[in-house]
């Protein structure tokens, strides 16, 4: 049911944009007003969330060490997995963010008769995630050609690389296929893998369906539904948006507005959802702290004033026993009262 709702929600968004943009005057709403609003929500919301996170301190160094820490000279230090310096932390974070290193470690366990538990390397999730994220990233970067005038040469190189196989006309981009495939794989995984199905929420299905539909409408626009899709017009609007002088020249096809509206929906949804993991990963204390907590004191800004049960109180309670047992004491026993 949770995934059905996601489809319904996205279909509703498609209808709103498809029909709404055809009403005279509305292209300005869908082409200009909503994109501005969405980008403001995205930027403002993301900054707000990061600031909210940053406002809470990191009271304790809770790094997760995934390898040998820095210790004696003859013990080989694993600099990436138990970083001791800022540079080592940066390297650890870089590999985490760029290569999804923790996911690369993934294993799958099975329980057999005996009982016998086995663990085997399982890289599917890592692979799916990599396909999805890198396709998405390259597509976003490629879209910069719409906003930049003149178009930087490197975007051309990127497009050339992306369309290297020269299939179809216009040339199919690998990343277009990659993004669609990534969404389908990640979505199917949620349905098929029993653990993941059990934990999945609508919050997990919806973004996948939304991004899939964004990719799909983009592909339809580029390769199939080309009526009223004049790239010069679209570029004019896009450049207008970034230079704060948006104009919509001639009529642009509904498919463009659907595509754009879904992107706006994604941008506006972003800061309020799990998609914020793109920023959160940088702030995760188990990964971004040095494992030098015994060498250098970590400060807790709210360190409460708490004293131990005092030695004096302890000795007062047990002094007789201590003296009897020959354990040194700070205060000798009071002379017995019946000494007189």
């Amino acid at each position, binding site marked *: 049911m949770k995934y059905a709702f996601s489809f319904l929600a996205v279909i509703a968004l498609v209808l709103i944009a498809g029909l709404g943009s055809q009403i005279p005057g509305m292209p300005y709403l869908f082409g200009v007003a909503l994109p501005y609003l969405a980008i403001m929500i995205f930027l403002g919301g993301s900054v707000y969330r990061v600031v909210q996170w940053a406002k809470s301190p990191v*009271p304790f160094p*809770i790094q997760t060490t995934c390898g040998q820490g820095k210790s004696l000279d003859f013990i080989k230090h694993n600099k990436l997995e138990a970083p001791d310096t800022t540079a080592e932390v940066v390297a650890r974070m870089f590999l985490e963010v760029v290569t999804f290193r923790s996911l690369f470690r993934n294993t799958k366990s099975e329980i057999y008769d005996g009982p016998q538990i086995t663990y085997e390397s399982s890289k599917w999730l890592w692979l799916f995630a990599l396909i999805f994220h890198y396709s998405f990233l390259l597509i976003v970067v490629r879209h910069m050609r719409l906003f930049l005038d003149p178009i930087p040469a490197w975007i051309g190189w990127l497009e050339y690389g992306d369309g290297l196989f020269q299939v179809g006309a216009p040339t199919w981009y690998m990343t277009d296929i990659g993004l669609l495939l990534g969404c389908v794989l990640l979505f199917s995984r949620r349905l098929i893998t029993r*653990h993941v*199905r*059990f934990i999945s929420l609508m919050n997990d299905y919806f973004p996948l369906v939304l991004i899939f539909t964004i990719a799909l409408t983009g592909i339809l626009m580029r390769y199939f539904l080309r009526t009223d899709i004049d790239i010069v017009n679209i570029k004019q609007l896009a450049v207008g948006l970034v230079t704060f002088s948006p104009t919509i020249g001639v009529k642009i096809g509904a498919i463009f507005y659907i595509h754009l509206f879904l992107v706006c929906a994604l941008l506006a949804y972003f800061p309020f959802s799990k998609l914020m993991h793109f920023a959160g990963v940088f702030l995760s*204390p188990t990964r971004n702290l040095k494992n030098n907590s015994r*060498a250098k004191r970590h400060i807790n800004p709210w360190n*409460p004033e*708490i004293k131990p049960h005092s030695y004096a109180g302890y000795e007062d309670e*047990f002094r007789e026993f201590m003296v009897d047992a020959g354990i040194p004491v700070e205060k000798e026993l009071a002379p017995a009262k019946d000494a007189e």
Partner: protein
Amino acid sequence: MAVPKLEQLSKSVVQGPSLATGAIPTMDWMDIPVVFKPGNYAYPAKADKVAYLNSQPGLYFPNSREWSPEDEDWKLPEGWKEIILKGLKERLDKFRSLKIFMDCCVRCGACADKCHFFLGTGDPKNMPVMRAELLRSVYRNDFTLAGRILGKMAGAREMTASVLKEWFMYSYQCTECRRCSVFCPYGIDTAEVTMMLRELLHLVGVGINWILEPASNSNRTGNHMGLQPHTFKDNVEFLVDDVESLTGVRPNISFNRKGAEILFITPSADVFAEPGLYTAMGYLALFEEIGLDYTWSTYASEGGNFGLFTNNETMKKLNAKMYAEAKRLGVKYIIGGECGHMWRVLHQYMDTMNGPADFLEKPVSPITGTVFENAASTKMVHISEFTADLIKHGKLKFDKSRNSHVKATYHDSCNTARAMGLMDEPRYILDHVVDWVEMPENTIREQTFCCGSGTGLNTDEIMELRMRSGLPRANAVKYVHEKHDVNMLSCVCAIDRATLTSLMNYWNPEVGVCGVTELVANALVLKNENRGELDEGLRTLL
């Protein structure tokens, strides 16, 4: 409540209807209530222990009372729901980890089958992601826009008594071992979530006795066992006698001695019960051999810290004794014995909570002159670091054949591996003193499996749970037992020494459990020794 027979449990973990073995629950998880019955929960804390802790300055343990998880009414205080939500708000403001971990999970499921509780029980709510969702659902409901607007559709739910009961059930089916955090792409650490859940539960008087009683003992008598100073001394002296009768060398010891160079602190279990006793005898023999100028303390006679399993205030209060005692005695630095969670506190919390230890000196081995730069600020050295350094400098003479009765393997305890990165020091030591092999690679080092009974869950009333959650560890031991005739599971953790013993007795009765220092002392050739054939090392009965 009796523990099922081995054959029965062996079948149950494989075939039982559970998510781990294939069954997909048909109900949404929010619609499955928890049911408490004998054997699936640890006994609640006794009222007098809670009241005692509450009376201590700096601690807050309200609502002491007699209650049972099996009762419908948990006698929660007036306005308990507001107390919980306010407590959650406070913690979100105090711990960035909590905020990030609440917000960033994408439910990718990488953590799901990494948890020993999930593997052993198959209970879907024991998947780390689900454990966090138990809290996250309430967080969404009261602290996020999407949750407020969309409610259940966005995975939000209201805080209710049945949610609270679920928190109690599953925050005490997590040993804060952090294995899941190794695999999480955002480093989400379920230990943080469990710690917060437990802190919140204490705000309304919900806690377990196996944790709060040792914590209150430790506060009052200095150790979990509640050993008073003279008894603690007696216990160590018995061990001195034993070392003497076995080796002919009588270790020289002292208690609460001012002016000693080093204060030595180890978990009190080491001087109290087998097989930890042999590890303690190992310390005594080792320190005697190198002529270490050190003292024991009866006031700070506990390395462990059950505050870590309770709340950060209790952790701080109990831990503060170490520096207080080091300062009072005027030692130069502290050496800590073999213990897992103790070392998590020492490595990641102690200096922050109770430092700076500017009255101590940067640790230098008096025997080798090695400066322990990695402990420059905390001024506390791990016994394995200290011993490995002695071996490297050739200060110890070993006869490995004295351990010929042992074929060992090594269990990384969760905390020393994943919260410290202490992995190769114990291995370096083992290489010099015993014939040993590694367990399979997905079960050691940073991927090590918990003994299944950490964080104060080593209590007998939940033995079946413990045998289930310890299964992944036991299974890896079984593998090396069958393949390499391993008969000894060595470790550097006092809780392990107790809990793995029960675990081995159940799953692999031919495998014993020992501390690394026991193996060191077994093989150690002492100056002036007068020792006979010790077929079982320090365990030999004369």
